[in-house]
């Protein structure tokens, strides 16, 4: 009897962590392939075609195997410990928020009341790791890339957190499950369009995607702070980048776009993943359409435009009553 109970426990645990782990591994693999095909069509190309039976689906697995088999080159004067530890730590820190993000009303690895705050706390650790990476590589380009990351992420974390405060005030909690369930009548994206806009732009800047990918400006700095990285360490950085991209898209969906709520012909998790996919597609399209902004223009946008907009959003939320819409729980 006890043996069966233990097996039950283990199966329960595995089922509980399954969506998070699948997301962590699947989003980079599928996401990169999807992005490459999407951008290729925009650019009048075809994208991966040969690996895998249909449209090169297995291309990413081939790429990952290639990266894993490459030699890891460490510059002589680099700080070996930080150099090797940084990508591993970055991937772990980037993937940790998946432990508290709910994929469904009940499906979450660890139920925690302040899960939104936890996500933001993990997001603010990443710039520190990148700065250390840039310094430890003993390369001028990496160093400049690391400094640029600090400037950029500092400027955009503040609007990121401020823009969510409107939603937090309306639902009076930091809990993602409560926030999502509170949108059963109307989505927060429609109630707080300013908040959605600011959060979206700030999150693109936080995950270093075009048009805000200055730290990895390939044409000027030879890929910036990742210059000295090769092989599996580079693969881990790419994974960390895409995992945080996926997490931010998930956050936008849950906080502003109704999360897993939707008509019942699809299971709630399917709605969540569908909406996340739409948000991610939109962000990926930016990469094919816009050039990079310059550093001073980026900082001007962050400090002088986004923060005031986020503050105006909070002001409007406090002044305009929305109790009648049945939002406050």
């Amino acid at each position, binding site marked *: 009897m006890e043996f069966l109970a233990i097996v039950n426990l283990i199966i329960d645990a595995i089922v509980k962590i399954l969506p998070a782990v699948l997301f962590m591994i699947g989003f980079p693999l599928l996401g990169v392939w999807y992005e490459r095909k999407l951008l290729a069509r925009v*650019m009048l190309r075809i994208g991966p075609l040969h690996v895998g039976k249909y449209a090169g689906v297995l291309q990413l697995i081939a790429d990952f195997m290639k990266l894993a088999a490459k030699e890891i080159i460490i510059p002589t004067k680099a700080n070996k410990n930080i150099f090797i530890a940084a990508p591993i730590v970055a991937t772990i820190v980037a993937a940790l928020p998946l432990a508290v993000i709910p994929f469904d009303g009940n499906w979450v690895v660890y139920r925690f009341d302040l899960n939104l705050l936890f996500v933001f706390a993990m997001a603010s650790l990443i710039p520190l790791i990148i700065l250390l990476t840039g310094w430890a590589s003993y390369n001028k380009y990496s160093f400049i890339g690391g400094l640029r990351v600090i400037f950029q992420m500092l400027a955009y974390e503040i609007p990121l957190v401020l823009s969510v405060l409107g939603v937090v005030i309306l639902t009076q909690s930091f809990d993602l499950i409560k926030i999502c369930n509170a949108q059963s009548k109307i989505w927060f994206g429609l109630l707080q369009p300013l908040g959605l806009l600011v959060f979206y732009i700030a999150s693109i800047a936080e995950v270093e995607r075009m048009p805000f990918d200055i730290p990895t400006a390939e044409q000027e700095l030879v890929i910036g702070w990742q210059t000295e990285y090769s092989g599996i360490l580079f693969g881990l950085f790419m994974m960390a980048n895409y995992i945080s991209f996926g997490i931010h898209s998930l956050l936008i969906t849950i906080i502003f776009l109704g999360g897993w709520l939707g008509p019942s012909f699809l299971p709630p998790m399917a709605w969540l993943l569908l909406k996340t996919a739409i948000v991610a597609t939109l962000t990926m399209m930016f990469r094919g359409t816009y050039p*990079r902004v310059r550093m*001073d223009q980026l900082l001007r946008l962050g400090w002088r435009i986004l923060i005031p907009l986020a503050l105006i959003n909070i002001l409007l939320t406090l002044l305009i009553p929305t109790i009648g819409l049945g939002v406050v729980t």
Partner: protein
Amino acid sequence: MAVLRISWGPQHPASGQMRIILDVDGDIVVNAIPSVGYTHRSIEKLAEYRRYFQIVPLVERICNLDSFNVTLGYVQAVEELMGIVPPERAQFIRVIMSELNRITSHLYWLALFGIMPGQPTMLMWPIADRELFLDLAEMVTGSRVTYSYFIIGGVRADLPSDFPNRALKTLDYFEKRLKVYDKMLYRSKLYEMRNRGVGIMKKADAINLGVVGPNLRGSGVKVDTRKDEPYQVYDRFEFEVPTEEVGDAEARAKVRFHEMEQSINIVRQALGMLPEGPFQVKAPFRAPPGEVYKKVEAARGELGFYIVSDGTDKPYRLKISSPSFRNLAAFPFLMKDVTMADIPVIYFSLDPFPLDIDR
């Protein structure tokens, strides 16, 4: 903060085969010193050991993308020295191919200019459209770049019979694509933010520094060899020389864009006026003693050939005054007190071609 010396060097995804030594203070560039010579092949010295007709492939290598314009410069300088005049059909063919080559070279520039601010779509589209023009060139000469098609006395072979139709079809398609580029590149707000007001060269500075080509025309100076000293049959066509007043990177980009439109115009007129007749004239081996300076308007600017002949079948001295070498003076002038992100934008708005600089 201390000044960091970065080598925006030959091993760099964005620098071409030359090196710029940047002194950077934080994010601001304090000083920029170009360091060239990585592809020096001593073409001028080698030319003294080869006969006149053997030098055409040699001279072509100073700009292999823009080969028609470059060889045209050399070939017509030698023709003036020898005193021969190529037949009319050859002159028309030369003008058509040169203008098509101008479009090709400007498309290559547009691709690099698009990706420098970080916009990969603008890299792929012009390169894809350039393939159509390379197909046209392949139809006529057999190769995609470095054609060696012009010879002293005319052209090497006649145009294929279906060339005019195919060329007109390609040009019609390309005109539509130019409108798309206009929307994507020139009207995009982010491009304006990156290019407007960056790398400004006023009129007096541009003349003083001696820059040529679209760089000079982007600063308001209307200098174009095709109008100043018309060569081949350029004086029979009606076309404009686009000029912009402001002198920043956006102005230079606009000049090149409008030049592409004007090239389409010229090719259409030339194809309509193409006469029948021979395409070659026999040229002597030896040139009479004397000297000649003849220039052409290549895609990057004005290219001048100075040939001194002593009566034998090899030139005594060949001096090439290439556009990118003359534009080099603008680098230290423009790259002061700009942020590092502006360096690729300024660099590619001047359109340097290191092979041109080094010869």
